[in-house]
């Protein structure tokens, strides 16, 4: 009963109260879009939780996969938003490119773009994961290597020659699938879509971690060697969960793109990935609820503090990192559970 309360509250607030507020004019559409964006980030956080919270692999590439999804969608939107008679995005024209680069061509079609935006990060994660896990590189080494890869990809995406818009990224869109992005009903639709996606992916992850596969992941986290000794193919499990996490992040990125209207390499640097990890850590690692709660709370805090006290945000974020690691090993969700237990035991004693 208690366990389900948080879901009910979540659904009540975001699927019922917010839309009602919007239709009655109490909640401005921009608030909804903001929450829609948070949902996308929460989706990516779910991926982090699967990889880190459940399997114990600290990956620093989650923001990269998120951005790959966003870039895929961005490429489609760039091409579909070209004005009549123009065949190349303007930044390519400025760089004296005469022909659309080959990897842009399939993104002209929405269904191809949709599939590729998920597949490319998945395959990338698969290849990367295979080579790393095969040699049992894990823990700190894994973190450092993925961090370096994130840095290298950030540098590559920032170049003009890679034809991805350089440091300015992809931006300036008016339409998405023929809908006007400035239209409030389109914005509302995207909000609902993000909420649905979050719900669906949550449900999928829930099934995953409660399946035999999920149990194996937890076992790998707790004792990798023993799993190997009992003839589980740890490498396969690790690669699989790494790919699943990457594709989940990519879905988040794809939904994020039409709602913010801009994607830059700045979203995929090392700091972005570490921040995603701290969302999960603060919310509560190893609990799917924790990932969502952490992502929502920290992004809300970011929005609030950067408007109220811009210079203090880094202090607060840094402080949260330290406090979470030192005092909240189980995150907010764990803290709530602990307090509940305490209350219960007091209640039991007095009774």
């Amino acid at each position: 009963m208690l366990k389900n309360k948080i879901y009910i509250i979540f659904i009540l607030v975001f699927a019922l109260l917010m839309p009602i507020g919007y239709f009655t004019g109490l909640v401005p559409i921009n608030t909804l879009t903001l929450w829609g964006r948070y949902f996308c980030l929460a989706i990516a956080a779910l991926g982090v939780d699967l990889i880190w919270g459940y399997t114990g692999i600290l990956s620093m590439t989650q923001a990269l996969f998120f951005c790959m999804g966003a870039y895929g969608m961005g490429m489609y939107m760039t091409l579909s938003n070209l004005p009549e008679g123009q065949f190349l995005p303007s930044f390519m024209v400025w760089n004296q490119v005469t022909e659309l680069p080959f990897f842009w061509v399939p993104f002209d079609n929405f269904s191809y773009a949709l599939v590729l935006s998920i597949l490319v990060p998945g395959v990338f994660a698969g290849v990367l994961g295979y080579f790393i896990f095969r040699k049992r590189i894990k823990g700190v080494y894994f973190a450092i290597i993925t961090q370096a890869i994130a840095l290298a990809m950030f540098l590559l995406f920032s170049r003009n020659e890679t034809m991805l818009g350089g440091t300015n990224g992809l931006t300036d869109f008016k339409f998405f699938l023929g809908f006007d992005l400035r239209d409030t009903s389109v914005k509302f639709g995207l909000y609902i879509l993000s909420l649905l996606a979050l719900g669906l992916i949550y449900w999928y992850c829930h099934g995953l971690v409660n399946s035999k596969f999920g149990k194996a992941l937890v076992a790998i986290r707790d004792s990798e060697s023993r799993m190997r000794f009992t003839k589980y193919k740890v490498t396969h499990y690790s690669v699989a969960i790494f790919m699943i996490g990457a594709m989940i992040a990519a879905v988040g990125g794809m939904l994020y793109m039409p709602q913010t209207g801009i994607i830059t390499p700045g979203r995929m640097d090392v700091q972005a990935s570490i921040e995603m990890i701290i969302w999960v850590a603060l919310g509560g690692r190893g609990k799917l609820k924790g990932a969502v709660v952490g992502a929502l709370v920290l992004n809300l805090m970011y929005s609030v503090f950067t408007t109220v006290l811009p210079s203090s945000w880094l202090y607060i974020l840094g402080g949260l990192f330290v406090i979470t690691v030192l005092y909240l090993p189980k995150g907010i969700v764990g803290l709530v559970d602990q307090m509940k237990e305490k209350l219960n035991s007091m209640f039991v004693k007095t009774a």
Partner: protein
Amino acid sequence: MKNKISIFVAFLMVVIGWTQEVESYSIPLDTCVNVLLHKDATRLKEVATCLVTNDDIATYPLISAIVDKRLFVYKGTAVTKFPGDTLYYSVYPKLETISVQQEKLSEVNFPRSIRTKFNVLSKKVNLVHPNKSVREMSFRSFKTTGVLSDVDFLTSLKINEEEEEVLLAADEAIYSIWLHSNNAALQNKVLSELEENMNVHMLDPLLDYVALKENTNVEGKERAKKIIENIESREKTINVIQNLFSGISLGSILLLVALGLSIIYGLGGVINMSHGEFVMIGAYTAFSVQQFFIGFLPESWFDLFFWASLPLSFVVSGCFGLLVEKLVIRHLYSRPLESLLGTWGVSLILIQLARTIFGDVTAVKSPEILSGGINVTQGLMLPYNRLFIIGLTLVMVLLTYFVFFKSKLGLKIRAVTQNRDMSASLGVSVKRIDSLTFFLGSGLAGVAGCAMTLIGNVVPNMGQTYIVDSFLVVVVGGVGKLIGTIISALGLGVLSKVFEFFYEAVYGKVILLLIIFFFLQYKPKGLFPDKGRHSDD
């Protein structure tokens, strides 16, 4: 309309006046100078023309002072002061330093019409500039613009020249003029001269010469091509050496940063993401010491600030490290992934702190003794500051080695690194060793930061640029291995510079990363893994 006519009339008058003055007669130079100094308006133009037609070396300093608007008169003598110099020089009849009382100086200004009269000479006047690099530059300018009639004049200037670089530039100018001329004898003379003494700066004139003779069949063409080949191959060698050298100096900075990182990780299993910030703290310590020297100590002591800040950087960074260890890291030993997150938070706080206190960009002035460099051969210079960094690293590594392998403290550190619980049970105070090691490691980073002020600006996030690279050094070298760290730091430094030379910086980095990636396929535990097997849980 009226205005336009009057301007036209004025223009006509100028033109006519100018054509008349071209035929002006000669006036003694001393008179000319006097007229100029007293600004005798009626004769100014006449005198200026006379100076130009006379074209006397003795008047060049005076003319350049007029053109650059830095002519003064002091007790009847013409005086000037060159930009970036504190001394005053008398300009006529001889260029020499002179002591003046500032209040008795008065500036002499000339209208544009007079100054532009000297434009014909502008190329030549700086040939007698007191600053040797300006002289060198103006000799070089003759390489492309000089004509055969300039040669005698340039040769005459060579007689009094003492600086080797300037003499070289003068030779280059003369050779270039000869090469560009149509005189085969002179051209051959140049070629034989160049065959004997190679000069890398002669590449462009030689290329011009070859292009000019493209369709003819002179024997000089082949000789010139041979010389060009030699020059090019030499330039390539020099480039390689230069890149190797900057690679080693980059590697030595990486080494200083990674050394502490590796020791700390080996000892406590702590990934210290805030290690880069101790580099930053070291750099800001140097900056603060500099400001202190500027504010409170006599000016003649200023050059000492850097030497004072080196040990201070070590101590200050070390103390910060100790503080961070006591507050945060102490709780995270043997929890590497958590320590990574926690120390990342620490680094965010430290960066923002530095930004609040010091602002965005500051710089430290290098001490005089480290400016310049050793000229190994023509075109190859090894800057002193980079040499110093390499030397400093060498000293620090040796010190670390002695502490690590020859001292009692080192013995204990190695014991704790190998087996924490066993050391504790044998009476080693593990906590004290942890703190001391952290102090040493952070101090090394601080010294690295102090050294980095010699080659770059001081910015709040300067540590971040090095942190990922130095972690890669640790991974490649093998955790907690001194020798592995040294080899991998130097190797990565050199490789990244070499790749930067062949490809662009970004691609160089990506290629390097791929190499590391495949290296770890063969040596997942780094260059020098621990021997034997042990289970991790």
